[in-house]
Structures are given as C-alpha cells and as structure tokens.
C-alpha cells in the first residue's frame, strides 16, 4: 500500500488508456436508415398483470413493449382495452383534430402571426388516449407537447389560439410563450419552459390528494431528453417513498432538439426500466398504438386509484416534425427516419383498425378531415379578431404588473405609471383603444 501523498500520473505501463465514450446516433443527414436493430415485438404478446400486483411483476414489461394493434389492424391480446366503436371514432377524431390544429398553427407562425410553435405530430395517440383513459377531474402536469389533452378535454380551440397569438383575449394575458397553456378548470397545469419541473410537482399534487383522502390522481408527462434532469429522479423518489397516486410518463420520441435519446441514457436500458431501481411499477408501450396507450394509462390509473402506488410509463414514439419552429431537423438526422419509422403513424393505424372493424371508411375519414380543417380555420379566424402578436391588440399595459404578487406593491405601481407614460410617447395612437 502506498504511503503519503499520491504521485501524480504514476505510470502503469501495461494498462490500456481510458477512453471517453460519447454516444452517437445511428443515422445522420444523408444516411440510409435501417431499423432492423429496433426490436418491435408482436402485438398481443404480453400478459396484463393484475392492477394490484406487486410492482416487480411489471418489471419484465419495462424491457418489452405493450402493443395491441397488429399488422392486420386487429386489436389483440390481454391489453386490448375493448373499446366500443363510438369511443374509437371519438379517439380518432380527437387525434386528427390535434393534427389539424398543429398544421394550421404552424402555418400561422410562418405567416408571422406569432413567434413560436411546437407540433406533436406522430405523438397524438399519447396525449389523446391518456386523456380518454383518465377521469375528467384527474390532474395533468403536461410538457409542451400534450396539446392533445386540452383538445380531448374540450378546451375551446379559440382560447388555445388566443394564447398562441398572445392577443387581448389570451387567458394568460400575453405573458407566456405560445403553446405554454394553463387551464386549471380543465385539470391542466400551467406549462413551464424549464424542463422537468412539472414531474415532482405532479407527485406533490398526488400526495396532497392522498393526504386529503380524495379520489383524484395526478399524471405528468416529460420528454425522454428531459428525463435526464435531476427533477425526474426527485419525482421518482418522492413517488416511491410516499406511494403517491401518480402516473409518470416519459414520452420517448427519440430526439431532444438535436440530441438523440442516447444522451438521456437510452443505450443502456429503456426509460421504463428506471421504475425498477425505485421499486415502482413500470410499463413500456408502443406510443403510436392508441389502444396500447389507453390500456396502459387505464391500468396505471386504476392501480393508483386503488392505493397501489405510482407507475412509470415509457411511450416509445417518434417526433415526426422539428422540435419547434426554431428547429431544422434536416441538419442533424436522416430525412428518411420519419418515413421509415417502424411503428407507423398513430392516426393511420387507428383509422385502419376502425376500417377493419367495418366501423369506418376512407370516405368518412376524408370528410372528417375536411370538417376538422374547417373547424380549426373558424377558430383561428375568430381568435384573429382579438389580435395577433405584435399588432397592438394585446392585454392592457397595466396587466404586465399584475399577478407578480397578489397585491400590487408601490414600486410596481410606479413602474406601471412609467410604462403608461412611455406608451403615450411611443405609441400615442393607442390612446384611443381600450388600453386603459
């Protein structure tokens, strides 16, 4: 044994030098993609453990994938939630409406009507099916890609657009970035731009519900990239320690801006498998299979409601579009990835299932899509009457100083007066407006 201070860089000549490993995605722009390395297990294969089972019974599922819709568009296996055609059509419609909304608002951003937009293309099944499997009064702690939950819960599209345009009817008074909704009456928690903060908060809400002997549960969504944040682990620890009635979702859409899922640890194990280390239930689900998503959410919600504790669910999916309107995915990933994503498009898969059931047709789908485009168009036109970003029709200046605190302190009153004085000088014509 050495005595005294260590000698720096003592030569151990026969040892290989250490090497830093930096993950690298399989495909870059220009590469031909090949998904044969990606195991896609057959639908219907996995058993559905009892909702009250010990957490450890779910752990094999965290390394596999719950799938219900098979290659022939049938719903198969123990996880088939057995939804009636009416419910399936409602699910399809809500997913298609979410996509229509995204398409139009994306264009609005390109037309300069707002500063920013984020689509959830390819991920519609996750938010819509989860919302449908939850009770209407369960609390959702979303990230910025769960607009489908608001739409599922019937939040007015016009108000979503008002928020995106930051106009004078924006329920959030023009303060938040577009798409960072907040809708307490719809059980939809205020979205933060600071990633992962909602995760421990959801656990806290669930703990509160348990403290109060309520029956409502909480659920939260995080991207796989954001699951690298410490907040993720804080949430898992609290959920496990207090057996919180919460369902925690990792939406693994493969990409976090330009960083592939390997930078959140995906090369070592699945995201669902993190449940194991915390001793809670975990499920890994085909996120492009609306029925599998519904079944998993329902299973975990029932479990939480029966005081059996938290579940971590990984939704394996693909971010088909750019990260946001500020992003250009062609700069870092193969353009073909989207086309060749082996789990398909969630809307197409559900549509084909309904058609296979004899409960839907291509013609009905086309008519529905036309109708939805029109519905979104009407909503955006309606919202535009309240203004678009940067065209003067926003909330009155004074609102800028409200809600910092419950009551306005003297220094903010002074600053509000300053803002009004400046407005009078910079934009005298605004005096005529209702901007008192």
């Amino acid at each position, binding site marked *: 044994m050495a005595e005294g201070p260590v000698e720096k860089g003592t030569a151990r000549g026969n040892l290989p030098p250490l090497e*830093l490993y*930096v*993950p*690298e995605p399989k495909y*870059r722009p220009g590469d031909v993609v090949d998904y044969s390395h990606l195991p896609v297990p057959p639908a219907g294969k996995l058993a559905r453990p009892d909702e009250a089972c010990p957490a450890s019974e779910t752990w094999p599922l965290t390394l596999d994938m719950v799938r219900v819709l098979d290659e022939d568009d049938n719903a198969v296996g123990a996880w088939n939630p057995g939804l009636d055609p009416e419910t399936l059509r409602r699910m399809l419609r809500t997913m298609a409406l979410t996509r229509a909304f995204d398409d139009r608002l994306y264009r609005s951003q390109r037309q300069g009507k707002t*500063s*920013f937009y984020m689509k959830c293309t390819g991920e519609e099944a996750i938010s819509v099916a989860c919302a449908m499997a939850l009770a209407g009064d369960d609390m959702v702690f979303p990230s910025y890609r769960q607009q489908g939950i608001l739409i599922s819960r019937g939040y007015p599209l016009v108000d979503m657009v008002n928020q995106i345009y*930051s*106009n004078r009817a*924006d329920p959030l*008074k*023009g*303060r*938040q*970035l*577009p798409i*960072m909704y907040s809708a307490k009456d719809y059980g939809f928690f205020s979205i*933060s*731009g*600071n*990633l*992962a903060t909602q995760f421990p908060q959801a656990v806290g809400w669930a703990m509160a519900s348990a403290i109060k002997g309520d029956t409502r549960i909480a659920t939260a969504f995080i991207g796989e*990239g*954001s699951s*690298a*944040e*410490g*907040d993720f682990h804080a949430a898992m620890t609290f959920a496990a320690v207090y057996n919180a009635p919460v369902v925690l979702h990792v939406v693994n859409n493969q990409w*976090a*801006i*330009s*960083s592939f899922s390997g*930078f*959140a*640890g995906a090369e070592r194990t699945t995201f669902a498998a993190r449940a194991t280390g915390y001793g809670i239930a975990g499920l890994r689900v085909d996120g492009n299979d609306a029925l599998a998503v519904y079944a998993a959410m329902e299973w975990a919600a029932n479990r939480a409601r029966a005081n059996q504790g938290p579940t971590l669910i990984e939704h394996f999916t693909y971010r088909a579009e750019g990260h946001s309107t*500020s992003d250009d995915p062609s*700069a*870092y990933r193969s353009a073909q990835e989207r086309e060749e994503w082996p789990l398909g498009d969630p809307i197409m898969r559900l549509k084909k299932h309904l058609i296979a059931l004899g409960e839907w047709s291509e013609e009905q789908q086309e008519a529905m899509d036309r109708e939805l485009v029109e519905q979104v168009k009407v909503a955006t036109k309606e919202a535009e009457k309240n203004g678009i*970003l*940067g065209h003067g029709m*926003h*909330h009155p*200046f004074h609102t*800028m*100083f409200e809600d*910092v605190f419950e009551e306005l302190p003297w*220094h*903010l009153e002074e*600053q509000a007066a*300053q*803002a009004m*004085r*400046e*407005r009078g*000088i*910079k934009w005298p014509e605004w005096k005529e407006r209702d901007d008192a």
Partner: protein
Amino acid sequence: MNMIEAINDALDLMMARDPDIVIMGEDVGYFGGVFRATAGLQKKFGRNRVFDAPINECGIIGAAVGMAAYGLRPVPEIQFADYIYPGLDQLVSEAARMRYRSAGEFTSPITIRSPFGGGIFGGQTHSQSPEAMFTHVAGLKTIIPATPYDAKGLLIAAIEDNDPVMFFEPKRIYNGPFGGDYDKPSRTWKGHPGGEVPEGYYKIPLGKARIVREGEALTVLAYGTMVHVAEAVLADKGIDAEIIDLRSLVPLDMETVEKSVQKTGKCLVIHEATRTSGFGAELVTLVQERCFYHLEAPVERVTGFDTPYPHSLEWAYFPGPVRIGEAVDRLMKD
C-alpha cells in the same frame, strides 16, 4: 464578423492552443448549439473534446467541476441563462468556493457560456438577465461582451482565467447592434468597429471597462445590449455623454468609472434586468460611496421592470430609448 462567429473563433483558437479545453452542453456537438456558437468544433477537435450533454444542467456544471479538479479547462454551454438554475448548487456552493475551501488545492477554471437577455420574443423563460445573482456569489466572475471584438478577446481571457467565469452573451446583439427601437430594422455588425475581429490570439483583460465614447456632460454605465441602446439615445439627444461599457461586472473597473464620474458629475446606470437588487443598485452605491462630493445630481438608473419578461408586451418591458431619454432629461435639467 458577428458575435456568434467571434465566439466560435475564440473557442476554435483556444482549443487548438490548449488540449485541456473541453466543451460540453446541450446540442453543442454535431449540431453546434442552438445558436451555432460551437458549429464545426466537434468535427475539428473530436468527440473527446466537444460533446453533447444530457439535459441536466446540474450534471453539466457538476461534471465541469470534476473535470477541472482533474486539470481540464471546461467551457460548458448552458443553452439559455434561464436554465442555469437547475445547476445552481454545483455553481454556487461548489465551483465558486472550491479554491477558498480547499485553500487553493482545488480550483475551478470553468467558463460557463450562456446566452441571456430579451428582445427576441423568448417569453419569460428565454429572456432573463440573471447576472446580478451571480455577482452576488463570492468566487464567481461575471463577464458580458457588447461587441464581437470584445466577445472574442474577453472569452479568450475568461478561458485562460483560473477562476470560474460566467460568460453571458447578449443574444439580442448576436447578429448586430441594436438601438432599442424594436420596429427599426436591425443592423448587422458589418461596418461597426466592434464587428472588426482580427484573426488570431488577442485578449481583453477581465476587469477593464471600455470607454465607448468620451464626454463631459454625463457618465453612462451600461453593458451588453444596453451599451448600444445608450449610444443610440445619446447620439439622438446630442448630449456630450461619456459612455462606459463595463464588460466585466466582477471584477469591476471602478477606477475608470470613478474617473469619469468625477469628471462629469453625473451618472446614469442602465441594465435590462429587473430593477430591485439588480446590479444597478450596486453601481449606484459604489458611485455614491466614492464620488459623492463630485455629484451634481442624484445617480439615476434605468432598468427592466420588476416583472417576468412578458411575451406580448416585451417592447413595453424593454428599457428602450424613451425610458432612458426621460432619465437623461432629468439628469441634464440643471
């Protein structure tokens, strides 16, 4: 050269000179960062020295502390200054005090680069100016360039510095100086003296302010974007003001400030950050303490308001020409 290119140039040059420099951060590798400040560096220096990080600011800063303990000189990027907070404990309790608590055994020669400030419709989570918080922490240096020329020279000095440095990049002026009127078309750095960035190594010492413009009537203290807004306003008003770009908040070039205020007898402090307990409060106090008998008017400060940055009203929030103009008028009244 614009400011992004100047920063890229400084990183490129320093990495070539010193094999101990490593860059990590969200999206900085293959993609070159969301603002492209590290573009091309991974290709040139390899994945051992420029690499993406998990979305984990605590991990980024904590790992940088460990790398520094080994002997490397990490230059991590935090994608937006608003996102340093998850890494705050590693920064404030660890990096900042490493030299002190180990009596110099361990140091943290880390340069944390991060875009900050508003004016790009970034909403309340992509617009903050948190510099004052870091100046409050003993052991951190806080540097803010206002031109591409300075960005390169200061970044080189920051990387060579043996203490942890917060290097805040005013993103509003990445692509050109900005006079503060949101509806005037943005200029580019082309033709601006600060946009002329020499090739090769040069360094601007940390803690030396830059006199942007000499004058007799009034001293204006500003940094980052606000230097340009101050210049535009005072040029419009035709006031013989001395404008000082502080460049470095900690360490602060108090000598230059004192000399100027003693000459002009009047002082205006400008920053974009919220007012209460902002760095302006520190500056006003220092001027008061050291130049009191030379002052001919109360020291004024112009700042952002004490609210988060509101998305739709960001041009009402921004301390633009009108707010600055009013303060200048008050100061020049007698």
